[in-house]
């Protein structure tokens, strides 16, 4: 594969800073969190009491034949065991719920943040990456935060309790018992590091393998038609083999790490018995204490063995946190103004507007001026890349940062409140987008509109018949991306969406996808209706659309090169006449469409 891997970005914020920021989402569940943290020392006490009790049982009761006392000790041990279980379970459960809720809230906030960004934000970020910020990263944070960060705290508490207890029982035996500890930590760490490198490599390779399958399944027709099967199989096998080799190495370190940790605990026991045994033999300590120490060492090793794994988890959670907060810190949303608009007779004015896309030096629009009177239709024509769609994007406030002035009813676009702007202006984008929801949702979202009103709107754009023919009418789920509808039907619905609200101004970027002539007629008629009812700014591709406009702006390389109505432009024999000729001989764009009465 020739595609380059994106290198991991180094973290920019310190752990404390990240923790402090993340606390915001945990704060609502503060009480549960506090209880969970308060349980930690109690758990540590239960852990540390058990071996001591075992030692006492041996020294003071078993070896002295005190059977009654033994009953009490057994009972106490039972109490500790059950208590430890209940405490630990409650601790885990509390953290689990706080985690689930906090992560849910965080996901909602990330989602909301992204959904309010301007177009500029989306231009530079592939949807796939935004999706993984909202799902995988948030998920990873939830999983790793509590096992990583909180887990390390609980382990530390346990370890401290054990060491303190051991020191208070016999300092020297404690020192000897833990003499092997540094060696264990070093060895385990060494193995973990190797393992981590391999697991990163494996993740990349597995993603590559899955991506490879996905791509070849999606393009299976091309693969088979072009006879690419054998090449694809070879390439796949090569990546697969690389994965296999990596897996083998990772297996080796994994197996060895597990075995070494296992063996090291036994070595610790050996050391304790060797030094402790000599103390017992010399009557310096009791046999019960030796047994208790063997037990302590075993219990102390658990957190030591798991430390580096938990540390890695913790790092992962910080990395996820860093990526998420970085995203939350990026705000490219376009601020809403506070000016209000009256519902009607809004004139649109572009006054010497110049605009360039971020990171591109050459302006995509230069010195654009025009005026759209209420109730009139302005058509933008010109070849691809002339800047027609950009005019629409600026007008609908998908981008900010233009020079010059864009006014609605004499008020600067940037100063108008978001609600008012969306109320007076509806947009039909060139790429039709339908949600996998009901037809009703797609038309009106959550506006309070009656079915009758919606059906009337659908009637207006000739879409009522096919919507009513759906099994559940307006309530029918349209399927992912509106997959239940044909391309032409989707176009009609997209037009209906603009008509379903009382917006006075419609910004229409005509769809270019070809549909069959019958539907083409329906779409054309729907557009004619819109023209007669609304103030329209249209990026026109169909000749009939262009001819029906009150004002035609011919654009080229970001400038308006000609303006006027159809007849006068045609008569002047300039760029428009040329374009018109091309469209005509193309023949298809306006085939089977009745000529508009005005032409």
């Amino acid at each position, binding site marked *: *594969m*020739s595609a380059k891997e*994106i290198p991991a970005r180094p973290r920019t914020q310190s752990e404390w800073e990240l923790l402090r920021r993340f606390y915001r989402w945990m704060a609502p569940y503060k009480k549960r969190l506090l209880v969970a943290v308060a349980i930690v020392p109690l758990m540590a006490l239960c852990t540390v009491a058990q071996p001591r009790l*075992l030692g006492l049982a*041996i020294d003071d009761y*078993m*070896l002295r034949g005190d059977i009654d006392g*033994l009953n009490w000790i057994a009972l106490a041990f039972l109490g500790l*065991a059950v208590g430890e*279980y209940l405490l630990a379970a409650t601790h*885990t459960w509390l953290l*689990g719920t706080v*985690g*689930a809720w906090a*992560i*849910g809230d965080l*996901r*909602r906030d990330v*989602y*909301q943040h992204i959904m*309010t960004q301007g177009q500029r934000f*989306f231009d530079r970020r592939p*949807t796939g990456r935004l999706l993984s910020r909202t799902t995988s990263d948030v998920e990873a944070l939830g999983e790793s935060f509590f096992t990583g960060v909180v887990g390390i705290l609980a382990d530390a508490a346990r370890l401290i309790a054990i060491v303190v207890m051991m020191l208070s029982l016999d300092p020297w035996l404690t020192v000897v018992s833990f003499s092997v500890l540094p060696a264990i930590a070093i060895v385990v760490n060494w193995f973990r590091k190797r393992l981590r490198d391999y697991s990163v490599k494996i993740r990349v390779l597995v993603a590559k393998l*899955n991506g490879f*399958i996905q791509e070849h*399944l999606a393009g*299976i027709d*091309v693969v088979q*038609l072009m*006879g690419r099967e054998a090449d694809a199989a070879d390439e796949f096998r090569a990546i697969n083999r690389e*994965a*296999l080799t990596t*897996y083998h190495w990772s*297996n*080796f370190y*994994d*197996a060895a790490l597990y*075995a*070494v940790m*296992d*063996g090291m605990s*036994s070595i610790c026991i*050996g050391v304790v*018995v060797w030094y402790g*045994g000599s103390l*017992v033999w010399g009557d310096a300590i009791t046999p019960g204490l030796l047994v208790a120490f063997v037990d302590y060492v075993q219990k102390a090793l658990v957190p030591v063995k798991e430390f580096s794994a938990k540390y890695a988890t913790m790092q992962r959670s910080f990395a996820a946190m860093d990526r998420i907060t970085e995203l939350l810190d990026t705000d490219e949303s376009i601020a809403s103004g506070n000016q209000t608009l009256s519902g009607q007779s809004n004139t649109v004015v572009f006054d010497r507007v110049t605009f360039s896309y971020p990171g591109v030096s050459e302006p995509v629009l230069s010195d654009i001026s025009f005026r759209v009177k209420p109730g009139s239709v302005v058509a933008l024509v010109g070849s*691809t890349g002339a800047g027609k769609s950009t005019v629409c994007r600026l007008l609908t406030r998908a981008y900010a940062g233009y020079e010059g002035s864009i006014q609605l009813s004499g008020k600067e676009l940037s100063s108008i409140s978001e609600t008012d702007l969306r*109320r007076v202006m509806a947009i039909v984008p060139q790429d039709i987008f339908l949600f996998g929801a009901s037809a009703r949702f797609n038309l009106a979202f959550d506006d309070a509109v009656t079915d009758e009103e919606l059906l009337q709107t659908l009637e207006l754009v000739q879409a009522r018949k096919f919507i009513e023919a759906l099994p559940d009418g307006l309530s029918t789920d349209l399927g992912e991306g509106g997959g239940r509808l044909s391309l*032409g039907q989707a176009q009609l619905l997209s037009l209906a969406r603009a008509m379903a609200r009382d917006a006075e101004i419609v910004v229409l970027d005509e769809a270019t996808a070809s549909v*069959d002539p*019958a539907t083409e007629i329906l779409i054309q008629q729907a557009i004619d209706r819109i023209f007669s009812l609304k103030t329209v700014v249209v990026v026109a591709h169909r000749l009939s659309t262009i001819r029906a406009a009150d004002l035609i702006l011919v654009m080229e390389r970001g400038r308006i090169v000609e303006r006027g109505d159809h007849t006068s432009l045609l008569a002047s024999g300039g760029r428009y006449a040329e374009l018109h000729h*091309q*469209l*005509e*001989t*193309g*023949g298809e764009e*306006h*085939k089977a*469409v009745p000529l508009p009465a005005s032409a």
Partner: protein
Amino acid sequence: MSNQVCFANITTTSMTIILQFFREYAAKYWRFYTAGLIALLCTNGLSVAIPWCLEQALVSVDPVTGDGNFERWVALILGAAIAVMVVRTTSRLLIFIPGREAEFVLRSEYFEHLLKQQAPFFRRMNTGDLLSRGSNDIQFVRVLIGFAGLQVLNLAFALPLNLAMMFRTSVPLTVGCVLPLLLALYVMRRSVAHMMTRMRRAQEELSLLSNEILESYNGVRVVQAYGANHALLERFSKRNRSYVGIQVELSLLRAFLLPIVTVVGNLAIVVLLWFGGREVASGELHFGVVSAYAVYVMNIVAALTSLGWVINVVQRGQISLSRIMEVLNADPGIPACTSILPEGPLDIELRDLTFSYPITGDSPAVSHISLRVGSGQTLGVFGTTGSGKSTLVRLLSRLETPPPGTVFVGGIDVRDVSLRALRQAIAVVPQKSWLFSRTIRENIALSVSEDDLKGAVLSQAVQDAGLQDDLQSFPDGLDTVVGERGVTLSGGQRQRAALARAFYRGGRILILDDTLSAVDHDTEQRLIQAIYAQGDGRTVVMISNRVSALRHADILVVLDQGRVVQQGTHDELLAAGGAYADAWNTAALGAIS
């Protein structure tokens, strides 16, 4: 649907599938397994020997009963500890290796098998499902034969060895300690099953949530333009809440049910203290024995804990295995090849061709089509959406298998020719121009090895397809990466790239399925010139609903609802009147006004 089929399969044929799998993929690693078993036996022997040495050491340090000669037992413990590191590593490696090797073979074969499958298969299975079989299910199978294999074999040794050491000490004590553990195992087993169901549900909820999010992000322009943020947020929140709900349920199970074996293990220690302690007090047992006994109990707890998981891994692995085998055992249904295509230019003939897709049921996509295109001629196909144009392309290129005796290329039934030979002869530019996320060069050549050899051919193809100017606007020209990680191509650029791919590949028949729909009129005419200029006896099938693209064809057919309603040259069709003539006249009428 396929899931249900799968589950039905498990109950009836799960053993057959597992046996088939072991025969075909795992059996050849028997040497690894045998050696692994021996290493595992040693490992378990040593891990039982260590507590026993501990017991002996404790007995010998006891000032009352011992001989003080405990150093040799300590030495044995240390020796055993080092030995156990080596044999445990070896045993794990020996048993994991076959799992990985089998995973490798399985994954490669799975992919190769998918590439062989024909359209009916892909209509039956959805891509997401096939993907998850190729990634998740294959991993579960590896875990089944690697990890689960190891755990099962380990249990087979660990349980009897530890139990034997315990029974050696005291039979009633052992029964008293093991009974509660069996109960705990049962609870554990049930809770793991509960957790698994919820984890699967969580997984499903998560993928629904992801879909919801993806849809919102893709439609963000519409959402913002219509001020519909709130409506979308509500939909999102509903999904988000139900996902969080399952997580909360899961956390309760995870917290209270999973540690059950451990807590019961501690109860066994209480039993040991109680009864074992009495025997120590009465002098029947040494306290060292009780210490070692505690270690055996903990060994059994560990083994049982893993058993709860292993049972699940085995079940899940079986399901996964049958899901993979379903694909591997699927017959691509390619008829045997009995003929070879003649040399030189190829003609096309359809004889009373009727074809229906299995899913749409009775109404045929194309019916009773008969026509002949001489070699070197151009066939134009005109018709509305859904008239059967694309089906015709799929049948000609054998993406769909036509009935016998209906589609002939070079006088030979396409069913009798090998797919490879047929597709070498036919270059198709499909309606949807699929590009891989690699360089444009690789997308055109689709085969890395021939790159250097055909540099000139490649640049000629780029030229002919009118892609030259576009390339200049890309950062790395031909080596620009396409897709998510690179540039996004416009519809017209994608079509031109697909056209270049077909030109590069060559072939004696060229089929264009509405290929020029997204390019402007000038470009369209230029490309049509290029297609005709490629000439030298190539037969061309051009499908379009644009009259301008078709007018120069030698033969034109008009399709309507799967039938040929008109046939003739451009002039003949104009004279005859009908849909084609109407479309042409509307264009002309437009020009006059």
